[in-house]
């Protein structure tokens, strides 16, 4: 997916945006913003917070793009900003005892799991129920991970980022990112037990 042509065209976009081309900047935003928003939402479980993070991420990108020197990939740089902002948000929430499994929307509080689509589960009520239970359990475990473990897990599992890039984004070594992912998956495995 991320071929050489794609990378070079992204580099051209970045250079154009650095020269002040607002269309190039917009294109750059639209290339990455869906994934950024999804990650923020998956981590923060709040539309409002995800929206704030989205806004702040791209404003920071806009302000700091002239300083971007291609020393790492744009995606790594972008996710460094995303992860810092998400970690800040999660730290702020640490005072709360336990994160709820529901999230806020304009239409009120909604159970997150009702939006979880099931793999072929719609075809069989029994399987659907099992699948919902698995997802519920998985989400419970996710909410018990530390902020950093969760971030690494999100970046690897959902964003498909390599551990090396995750390490660069979080300013830690690849080994540290690997250990974080390892701990997260261990917790997941032990919590799920024979459930799946």
């Amino acid at each position: 997916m991320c071929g050489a042509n794609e990378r070079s065209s992204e580099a051209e976009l970045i250079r154009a945006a650095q020269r002040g081309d607002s269309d190039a900047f917009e294109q750059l935003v639209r290339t990455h913003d869906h994934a950024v928003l999804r990650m923020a939402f998956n981590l923060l479980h709040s539309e409002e917070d995800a929206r704030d993070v989205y806004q702040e991420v791209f404003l920071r990108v806009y302000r700091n793009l002239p300083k971007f020197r291609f020393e790492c990939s744009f995606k790594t740089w972008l996710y460094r900003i995303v992860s810092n902002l998400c970690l800040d948000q999660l730290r702020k929430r640490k005072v709360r005892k336990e994160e709820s499994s529901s999230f806020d929307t304009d239409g009120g509080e909604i159970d997150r799991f009702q939006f979880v689509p099931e793999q072929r589960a719609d075809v069989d009520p029994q399987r659907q129920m099992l699948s919902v239970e698995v997802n519920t359990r998985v989400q419970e475990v996710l909410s018990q991970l530390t902020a950093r473990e969760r971030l690494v897990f999100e970046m690897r599992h959902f964003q498909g980022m390599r551990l090396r890039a995750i390490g660069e984004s979080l300013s830690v070594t690849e080994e540290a990112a690997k250990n974080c992912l390892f701990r997260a998956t261990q917790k997941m495995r032990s919590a799920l037990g024979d459930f799946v």
Partner: protein
Amino acid sequence: MTCHEVQLNTSLYLYGELDFAPEEELERHVEECAFCQRMLDREKTWHSALKSGSDDVSLDLLSRCRRDLHASLPGASRRLAAASWGSDWWGRISSGFSLPRGSMKLAMASFIFFIGFGMARWTDRNGVPEALQSSGPFSASSLLGPSTTRVREIQPAAQDRVRIIVEQVRDGEVTGSVTDQDVLQLLLAATRDSADPGIRVDSVEMLNRQTLDQQALSGQDGNDIRDVLLNTVRHDPNAAVRLKALEGLRRFAGDSGVRETLKFALEKDENAGVRSEAIDILAPVDGKLQMTPDLAGTLQDLMRSLPDDDYVRARCQQVLRTTNAAFDVY
């Protein structure tokens, strides 16, 4: 590799983060160890359960975020211009040259004068380049708004001439009925080419409205719309867009190409909502369906290709039964 080591490395293996040698060892071990095989299967199950659990954020939320950002950027832009870009541009340009600052200014002034003079002479002889006039598939009157031109590259050419590569960015607006060719072609292009799923959903929605007009379905426009919807169902990476395209295909349900695509969606699409919509179109519960040999064949094929999907099998059987077509061969 021992069972314990396999257990420690399973997740990294599934993420493709193991080095070549340990990966080989793990695979060899798993092939021979039923316990680790089961453990690997379990791990795969929660990996995929979790993947499907991370649904996309709603396109509505994405649109709102984009609007917010768009509204914030002019302010940011002004601050930025004052703080960085504007004040720094001369330094950045001149830093690449070793000439003294005064000489550099003089050289740039001469250069700009030379370009202006060259452009004037060129346009005198050749007229304004077509690309700089309001061109393209739309009439001038249909395009409103400002156009901006940016010089991307300037090269000296033979005989005191200059070659300038110009990028033109033009805001345009086309307003009209979905049946207008300009509008329709833009919608088709947006569905096919836009990188933005929000735009693709909107354009498919508009195309779907067009398919309500039975008259339109019979002409070339109908074929174009059907083709683009078929392509969307098969290839669009966003489930919401695929789902929207399926809604539009309802009206083409009798078409063999559409049936093939519905079958494709049922067999290949990872999203449960998309599969559910596909079977609803192919085998509607109300049974208002004209059974043809082709359709019976498709349903029978599905019963064979999806032996574990009880729901799809039941729907196919129900339709085949109500139309007295054979279903028990599989």
